[in-house]
């Protein structure tokens, strides 16, 4: 079995974040956790290399920029993926596409 794929999801909408985490963690070797602030993201990324960071909704433009800048500069092995749609529709395709390019 492929090594566990760790995914960090950041999003400000708590209920949507819960749905996304539930959907991601249904997959056999995916392990997703969620945060709702840039500070929490930095804390999580400091201790672990995530394969994918999924940029969820509800953040301000400044917060999104801070996340992008941090991941690009500090997490070179992590693929940052903006999430669209807020649920199951595009979620798996976004992760599969990210894993292909990672």
């Amino acid at each position, binding site marked *: 079995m492929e090594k566990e794929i760790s995914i960090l999801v950041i999003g400000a909408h708590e*209920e949507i974040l819960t749905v996304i985490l539930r959907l991601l963690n249904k997959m056999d070797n995916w392990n997703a956790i969620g945060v709702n602030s840039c500070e929490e993201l930095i804390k999580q990324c400091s201790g672990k290399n995530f394969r994918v960071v999924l940029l969820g909704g509800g953040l301000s433009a400044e917060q999104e920029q801070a996340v992008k800048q941090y991941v690009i500069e500090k997490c070179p092995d992590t693929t940052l993926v903006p999430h669209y*749609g807020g649920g199951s529709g595009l979620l*798996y395709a976004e992760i599969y596409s990210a894993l292909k390019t990672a």
Partner: protein
Amino acid sequence: MAQTVLHTADSRGGADHGWLKSYHTFSFAGYYNPERLNFGALRVLNDDRVDGGRGFGEHPHDNMEIISIPLEGSLEHKDSIGNVGVIDPGEIQVMSAGTGIYHAEYNKNKNVPVKFLQIWVFPNKRNVEPRYDQQIIQTAAHPNELVQILSPDKNDQGVWIHQDAWFNMGNLEKDHQVVYNFHKKESGVYVFVLEGSVSVDGQKLATRDGYGIWDTSAIEITADTDARILLMEVPMEF
């Protein structure tokens, strides 16, 4: 020179949940095809059939422009910003999910299916304020014409969305010809045949075929039979 992509009806992905049968032109939910992810900003084109009395329970969306167009039957909508509505064939509904919205969609009727298109377009701005609208489509009053049903401008004809996109529908009689001029040179147009057969710049298309065209400024559409078409102009880079 114009570039094109053809998606025949039988090449679409599918999902059969019993009460819901759906054809996906682009990757969606459990259907993943890396060659079918989007056409520019057009990300989802789902051709759905929902049994009587059934539907999608409350579920979330964010950061997407979601357009529903009923083809048969009636679709009921409820959302977390207080909108309740029913849309029938001849109408269009738009929802900007933005920062986040919950909604539910049900077949309004108990005994007849509802068939509708659900179309998702990437927004040109993330985290906008969620909004909802529905309007009547004027195609029946204008046979053999393309009727604009969506644009980026709230003061223009049809509903509006947060993207440089223009949708047109047309009911064409056999042998009738129409020309569609692109609004922007950076755009592509995705033609989806709802009924009948048409030729787009000579490419023959049958019911539920899709055909994307870009790097051109106009297309000519000829109805090979009586036909109903949907044209979606979207930015190819966004």
